[in-house]
């Protein structure tokens, strides 16, 4: 098969121009603002000020790691069970899993307040059966729950997609060679679904670590994350753009490192597994 395309390179030029102007240039702006003061002079003071936000960075990373792990642990069996269903049910359940994603994420998060509030649904239920109400809202747990809930389809879908492509004959071969259900899972399904797990982890971790709505609504004002700090600073006026840009720059570099590490994992794993 010849490898020439179906058209000329020129048709890509509007897009290339667009990407240069609206993807590359704005990122240069962030870097520029991060290293200058409001008058435009070069400075490291914005980057230095990041130390003030180390608690927010720490909490963001901690909550996101926990949320990503929980999401992975509950999504993996879900994806596995989905592949065991009839094909028609699989399609149905896919629609069911994806449908909440099309609902406004602010409303989805807000609904959790009604469920978790001090006089919310769970606590009303607890008091009605004679138990003491528990504090659920405005806790780190509520923030993590919100993260897990909002981004769980991004974990289920890639794992399911990869798992459903696993050749059934491999599983049969494993059984024929004497492996039981558990070792089949550990030695065949787990390694083969690894790329799906990795892409699920990145697709959940990135929005978690940069969120600024979930923490405000479900975490009260005590659990402010790095996204909240960036949003707050940008809303405080142009004088704060520089520090906010420095925070954004650090967040971006952090995410890039994460993606790089994740990519490294998939590449080396694929090489050893396949």
């Amino acid at each position, binding site marked *: 098969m010849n490898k020439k395309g*179906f058209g000329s390179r020129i048709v890509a030029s509007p897009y290339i121009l*667009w990407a240069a102007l609206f993807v590359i240039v*704005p990122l240069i702006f962030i870097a520029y603002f991060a290293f200058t003061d409001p008058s435009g002079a070069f400075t490291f003071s914005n980057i230095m000020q990041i130390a003030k936000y180390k608690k927010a960075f720490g909490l963001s990373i901690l909550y996101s790691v926990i949320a990503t792990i929980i999401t992975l642990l509950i999504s993996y069996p879900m994806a596995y069970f989905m592949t065991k269903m009839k094909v028609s049910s699989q399609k149905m359940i896919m629609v069911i899993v994806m*449908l909440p994603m099309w609902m406004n994420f602010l409303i989805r998060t807000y609904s959790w307040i009604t469920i978790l509030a001090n006089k919310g649904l769970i606590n009303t239920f607890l008091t009605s059966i004679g138990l003491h109400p528990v504090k659920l809202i405005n806790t780190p747990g509520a923030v993590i729950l919100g993260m897990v809930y909002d981004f769980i389809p991004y974990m289920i879908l890639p794992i399911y997609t990869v798992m459903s492509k696993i050749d059934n004959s491999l599983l049969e071969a494993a059984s024929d060679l004497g492996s039981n259900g558990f070792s089949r899972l550990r030695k065949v399904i787990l390694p083969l679904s690894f790329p799906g797990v990795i892409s699920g982890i990145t697709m959940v971790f990135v929005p978690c670590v*940069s969120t600024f*709505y979930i923490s405000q609504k479900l975490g009260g004002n005590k659990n402010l994350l790095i*996204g909240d700090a960036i949003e707050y600073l940008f809303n405080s006026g142009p004088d704060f753009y520089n520090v906010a840009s420095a925070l954004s720059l650090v967040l971006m570099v952090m995410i890039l490192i994460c993606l790089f590490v994740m990519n490294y994992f998939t590449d080396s794993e694929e090489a050893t597994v396949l």
Partner: protein
Amino acid sequence: MKILSRIYVALMVFFLYAPVAVMIFFSFNSGESVWVFEGFSASWYADAFTNTEMIEALERTLIVAILSATISTVLGTAAAVGILAFRKKITKNAIMSVTNIPMMNADIVTGVSLMLFFVFIGKILGAYESLGFATVLIAHITFNLPYVILSVMPRLKATDHSLHDAALDLGCTPISAFFKVIIPAIKTSIFTGFIMAFTLSLDDFVISYFTCGHYQTLPILIYNMTKKTVTPDVYALSTIIFIAVFVLLILYNIAGNKSDKKRGVV
């Protein structure tokens, strides 16, 4: 084992839909609260349709979604064709890396980077307000483009060259061969790209938040409402949207099952 897996899936569905159920339930509240249920009433549905602020926001959201999805589908399809025509692997990889940036980067970073850029351009042009309809539209096209390109490109790569060559041999100009042979061959993936772009744009909050100025889309309006008090009319409108999307998805799936049995859902 089978029963166990059924219970697990049922629990997950319960978890996924608990907040949705709460929303639908409280949209029928006769009281003003989304916390305390006073009695059944459909009056908030009537209110949702007469709330001009909300309807206007919905209209704006739809306008931005339709325009940005259309423009990014055209630009993105052209881009996929053009990128594949590049001979040097380095150039191709460089363009694809840039394409991945808006998809991989945190929304908040994309949003603020565009805002800084737009505010700067606005200053140069001496505009009274630098953020508004145009900037939201540009922002949405920017984050939609990668999804269109990544949807169209694999299909384009897998398309048989001989059909295209045959069309050329039979006297088609390259342009008419493209529209008569290639476009029909990749139309499903173009459509998938369009739908993805449309839904992403419809649902976007973070990037719009930083680039919209006073051009309030529905997610922005909802955000501002959740800062103060939320009344059940928002829930009523969200319920209507939810049901509309549900019906569309079912229809899309039925159509998808008929046209293309091999590919996965959506």
